């Protein structure tokens, strides 16, 4: 069968292409070019997924295993659907989730369209998730690598045409396989940061892009850090440099650990509190993808609000594309703009959406500015 393998230049997608070849498929590698080399990258700080250097690596892998490889230019779409919303959200005091947005808008449809145009019957990626009969999305079996959290938004249509061969693999075995096959990137470190923010400082990227987009500079100016009673306890260099639930990006006068609870763009205030203040028992979710869910209803399941966070027991009630999640025990670090993914028995992804409101927090409910 003719299969397109989406290749990022990393070890996972390279091993995926090689596995498909082992299985006797006619494999065609495709890599998206998503952005130009950043200044950091040109300084040799290394690239991440889909950077020009990684695109070149994907081409080398394809040449080595003997399959065609095409690079497709999706820089405009990536800018419009991932980087710009990322900048806009941060400048509005939200916590964006660019990887899930990328999977929703970039990773599947553009490549599926091209796959169809060259007569391919399926597409595969190197994600750690399982696709059951093209119907259901499940966690990958390697708990440390499971990427289902990022994939809930891909939609049913894509699920019917996409394979995840690594869903039943452990990362260690993938590396061993890649090494045995002599793939050049078998030992490359896992990428940990946002691909378009190499070096991990998202604040500069947001600031640059927000200015290019002509967003108001006001929100990007320094401001004060206040506690839950409104007392000024420190300062920060711009609300786009802090992330709700984190302890970075601001300065306080006292040594105790403070977490960002809330960002108020209008007054450029960052509200901080201690660990207990970061808890919430109820969130609201919008843009609901109902993979396994009927039009409306409610269910007892587990809910994850970050890629690496522990799934928490909750009751989810939904109607159309809106849902309310009531946690059995309060959880930490739920932030507007992040994804909330619902899991059922046996690692099944029931659905998920984008957090619009987080309650039981200091200063009342936090609402997304949409």
């Amino acid at each position, binding site marked *: 069968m003719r299969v397109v393998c989406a290749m990022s230049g990393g070890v996972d997608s390279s091993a995926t292409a090689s596995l498909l070849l082992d299985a006797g498929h006619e494999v*065609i590698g495709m890599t998206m070019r998503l952005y130009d080399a950043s200044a950091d990258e040109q300084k040799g700080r290394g690239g991440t997924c889909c950077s020009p250097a990684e695109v070149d690596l994907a081409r080398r892998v394809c040449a080595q295993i003997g399959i065609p490889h095409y690079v497709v*230019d999706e820089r405009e779409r990536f800018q419009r659907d991932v980087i710009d919303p990322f900048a806009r959200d941060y400048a509005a005091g939200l916590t964006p989730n660019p990887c899930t947005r990328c999977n929703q808008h970039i990773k599947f449809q553009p490549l599926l369209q*091209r796959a169809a145009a*060259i007569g391919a019957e399926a597409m595969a990626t190197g994600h750690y998730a399982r696709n059951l009969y093209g119907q259901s999305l499940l966690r990958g079996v390697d708990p440390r690598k499971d990427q289902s959290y990022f994939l809930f938004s891909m939609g049913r249509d894509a699920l019917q045409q996409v394979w995840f061969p690594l869903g039943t693999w452990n990362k260690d075995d993938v590396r061993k396989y890649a090494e045995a096959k002599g793939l050049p990137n078998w030992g490359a470190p896992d990428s940990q940061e946002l691909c378009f923010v190499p070096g991990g400082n998202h604040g500069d990227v947001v600031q640059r892009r927000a200015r290019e987009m002509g967003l108001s500079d006001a929100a990007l100016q320094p401001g004060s850090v206040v506690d839950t009673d409104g007392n000024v306890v420190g300062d920060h260099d711009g609300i786009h440099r802090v992330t709700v639930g984190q302890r970075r990006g601001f300065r306080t006068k006292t040594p105790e650990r403070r977490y960002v609870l809330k960002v108020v763009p209008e007054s450029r205030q960052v509200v901080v509190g201690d660990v207990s203040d970061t808890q919430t028992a109820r969130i609201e979710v919008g843009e609901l993808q109902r993979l396994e869910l009927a039009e409306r209803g409610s269910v007892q399941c587990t809910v994850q609000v970050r890629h690496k966070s522990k799934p928490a027991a909750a009751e989810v009630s939904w109607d159309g594309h809106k849902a309310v999640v009531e946690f059995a025990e309060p959880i930490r670090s739920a932030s507007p703009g992040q994804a909330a993914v619902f899991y059922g028995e046996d690692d099944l992804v029931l659905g998920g959406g984008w957090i619009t409101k987080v309650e039981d927090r200091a200063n009342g409910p936090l609402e997304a500015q949409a």
Partner: protein
Amino acid sequence: MRYPPALVINLDHNATTPLHPSVRDALVEVLQRPGLGNPSSTHGLGRSCREVVEAARRALAGALDAIPLGVTFTSGGTEADNLALLGGSAALQTAGKPHGVATSRTEHPAVVSAAEALAARGTPVVWIPVAADGSISPDSVARVVKEHPEIGLVSVAAANHELGNIHPVAAIAAAVRETREGVLVHTDAVQAFGKVPVRFAEWGVDLLSVSAHKIYGPTGIGALIHHTHLKLGPRSFGGSQERGRRVGTENWMGAHGFGVAASLVDEGLAQIEALAVHRDALAAAVTAAGGRIHGMPMLANTLNFGFDSAPGELMCMNLDLEGIAASTGSACSAGSLEPSKVLLGLGMPPQRAAEAVRVSMGRFTTAADVAAFAGMLPTLVERVRKAHQRASS
């Protein structure tokens, strides 16, 4: 499926040409020669090898109406173009002369990116206007030089790599001289060499770039042709090879292959008009299928065209999977099939530019190759259009 398919119809000669059998034989012969060393060494081994390099230099100079002392070997066309712009501008600056660069957006990336790199470090760069059909007139170049006293170097290709336009380099050089003495004129003749007569002295240019693998020679070797007295700022540091203009141990094997390929250029030129017949047949097939021709196909081997609503990227993928090599533009754009910068430089809207397909034939292209391509064109366009329409609906 293993790649490439067993049978490939090569319609991408502007990316690279296959090695000429005579060049291959000459390379095998020189590699088997005993007693060759490092051409820079003073002993006998070095001297015999040095003679290989110098013979190649003479052959290349002879093919280009240049003198051997004005031939500097480089690693290829890109390095030659880079050396011309960066080295030329640096030397002008050192001499206290105007050192800005004027070139066009339709040049090869080796020139455009070098100009952008100069601009980034504060060197004045002016973009020469290009007509919608890809032509550049001597008058417009002269006007740029006149209106911008900061310009000290002009770079216009002898032939465009994507469109096949031939630019009037001799007339451009004359117009520049007439406007202001002392302005250096560079021409990237990488695509012109082997397809039209390339005459360094007769054209009156100061710098001229060529590359071996576009004239059926090996990859990894090119040359910058220049006046013997012309100073260039150094781009690399170490030894004093190539009279200090391009240091590092000479690629004598490559130079040998380049020299032999250059000596075969006239033979190729004698047959080039046969390709023009193929090109015109292809152009007729494109027009008959409802396509449009881009630029002015003046090189006998090159044709650039597009079909509405049929992205060039999908056309080229499908062609490749059928065993036909074609391109959307320069292979130097990170291997990606992105909208051609050359066509964007002509003011073409991005959607139209993204529909471009370039076919470029070569010495061993047959009428059957061309007929096979022309025959499948309507079906191919139909398939790609359908897939594209499904995707955008």
